[in-house]
């Protein structure tokens, strides 16, 4: 009896998509360990008051994508996509820098000051992104626009909006409270890691500890059916796009705080694709209907591990794309239904042979 349950558990584990994502991550790290064990060295850096090492970098720099992927995950679970998140990152940063330094002509040199108090800067950036998220939500939920088309509008327009906000300029700030968002530390960890952990926790509590997550999945499986069974599908779809926009805003603040500047052209470039990848690696299904928080976080970590690996070992950066494609292809193929069924069949056969019951 006991034996049987254990067997069942291992089967369930190998079936789960999270398992394969973790295997992929461990494999990359194993390669790092073989090439250069000092990749794993972590030390305490007294000047910044936090831990210092490549693994910390992976955690730290995956923040932007992880945060966006949390929103993307919910959007994808409703059978949607949000392509505008990358541009919203640029808007959020542009607005923050603009508010901190709107009288640029008077004080052209960046100093440790801001015209607007920090809480207002943050509230305005996040508010603007929330607003743009609700615009996406409105198009998809009210006017039944296809999500890719609807969010394409802000994806294209967003960078233009960011350019207009800053007058086409790249501004720099030395305002230390703003710098703290990305360069500060808490509990020996970089602030972005803490912020990301908080975001994951909030998403977990609000979706998996309430019925909200189930509602999202049910809308993704069949919108009409969930409406008929009493769910307000429109409001749920509206909400996930708002969450996605809001989280893109947080990501944008981290990005601009890292470079203590705005970059309307490059900020968040390609983030929508990385976020979708993270969700898919984590077991999300583009057709909607399910999401996996831990898997998505793992997906984002895999993407960042590849990038850090390439930088650390001095591989030509162009290879990042190839590595990404390879690892993702392998992970996704392993997760696909037919392959999994094939593997399962094999292991079942082997087991029955071992058990001496070939003709079962």
């Amino acid at each position, binding site marked *: 009896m006991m034996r049987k349950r254990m067997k069942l558990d291992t089967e369930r584990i190998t079936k789960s998509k999270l398992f394969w994502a973790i295997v992929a991550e461990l494999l990359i790290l194993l390669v790092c360990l073989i090439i250069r064990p000092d990749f794993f060295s972590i030390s305490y850096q007294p000047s910044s008051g936090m831990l*210092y090492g490549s693994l910390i*970098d992976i955690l730290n*720099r995956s923040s932007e994508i992880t945060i966006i992927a949390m929103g993307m995950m919910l959007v994808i679970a409703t059978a949607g996509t949000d392509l505008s998140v990358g541009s919203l990152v640029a808007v959020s940063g542009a607005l923050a820098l603009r508010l901190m330094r709107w009288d640029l002509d008077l004080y052209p040199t960046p100093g440790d000051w801001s015209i607007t108090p920090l809480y207002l800067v943050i509230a305005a950036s996040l508010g603007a992104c929330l607003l743009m998220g609700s615009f996406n939500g409105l198009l998809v939920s009210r006017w039944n626009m296809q999500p890719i088309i609807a969010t394409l509008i802000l994806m294209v327009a967003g960078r233009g909006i960011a350019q207009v906000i800053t007058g086409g300029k790249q501004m*720099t700030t030395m305002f230390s409270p703003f710098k703290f968002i990305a360069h500060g530390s808490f509990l020996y960890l970089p602030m972005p890691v803490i912020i990301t952990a908080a975001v994951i926790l909030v998403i977990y509590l609000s979706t998996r500890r309430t019925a909200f997550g189930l509602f999202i999945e049910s809308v993704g499986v069949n919108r009409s059916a969930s409406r008929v069974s009493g769910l307000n599908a429109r409001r749920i779809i509206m909400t996930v796009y708002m969450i996605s926009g809001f989280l893109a805003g947080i990501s944008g603040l981290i990005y601009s705080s890292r470079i203590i*500047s705005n970059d309307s052209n490059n900020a968040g470039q390609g983030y929508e694709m990385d976020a979708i990848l993270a969700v898919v690696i984590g077991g999300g299904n583009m057709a909607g209907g399910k999401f996996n928080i831990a898997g998505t976080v793992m997906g984002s970590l895999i993407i960042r591990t590849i*990038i850090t690996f390439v930088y*650390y070992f*001095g591989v030509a*950066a162009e290879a990042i794309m190839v590595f990404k494609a390879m690892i993702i292809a392998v992970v996704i193929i392993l997760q696909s239904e037919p392959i999994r069924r094939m593997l399962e069949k094999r292991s079942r056969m082997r087991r029955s042979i071992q058990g001496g019951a070939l003709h079962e």
Partner: protein
Amino acid sequence: MKKILVLILALTMMVGVASAELKVAFSQIGQESDWRTANTDDVKKAIVDAGWELIYDDAQQKQENQVKALRNFITQGVDYIVFTAIVTTGWDDVLAEVKEAEIPLILIDRLPETSFGNDDWYTCYFGGDFPFEGYKAGMWVKNYFESIGHKGDINIVRLSGTTGSDPQIGRTKGFDEVVAANPNMKIVYDQTGNFTRAEGQAVMEAALKAVPKIDVLWAENDDMALGAIEAIKAAGKVPGKDIIIIGCDAVKAAFEAIVAGEMNATSECTPLMGARVVEVIKGLEAGQTFDKVVHPVEYVYDMNGGIVIDDDGNVSLKAADHINERLY
């Protein structure tokens, strides 16, 4: 009603002709960076200030838009075309049309390649000498370390630009020349930062962990250097002292960093090309001829000045003396 309209139209056209104003068309590739914005603003302003009519087209990073714009310029019968090519090749057809229309073509910033086999198709070219910018940066590093009496190897981290872009190829080549001539200069880490602050920072963060000893950071544009400064601070090192930082472009933010002591030098690449455009057009109107290819005079700016930057003995300038002239 229609007749009146036609009459008005004819009259306005006559007025237009009567003013005999020069029509100067400018096809710009788009607005991808601060440098480009400064470049556009300067050229536009110079043409308008000269009292000529400016026809401006922003191609939004698309070659087909630029081809369309050039054809429109021909149809509109402009007197001069100022042109920055987004990519190097693929211009043969439209440039042949420009030549056929006998409109003088002034190239700025980028020199496209054609299969015409001669250089009759353009009037003149004005733009940065990328290899020389890299060479000057290399010379600055060499001579700076000589001036502080440094003995032994100089370990250099290079953050290169977008792979395959004109400035990346040129600046890399120029810097490599100096490295080849000085065996103590060693490039210990070489990675692209795609000309952006964020990637410059992430790459430097990795370099600081992968390479045990770094003396110099050479970034092929200022943005990457500015991003890397934060990574160096996070590693507990002092930018500008523990690691000598030299960038390229000489934008205002780099001047600010140099004056603040967090960056050491920057090799200039000027976007200010308006004055030259106006000079050429005025000269052509007066019947002068010009050299086909001319490069702007560019300097290296650093903390104290006085470091030799080329084979002719020219020295770097002190950034603090020039920071207020910087507009971009």
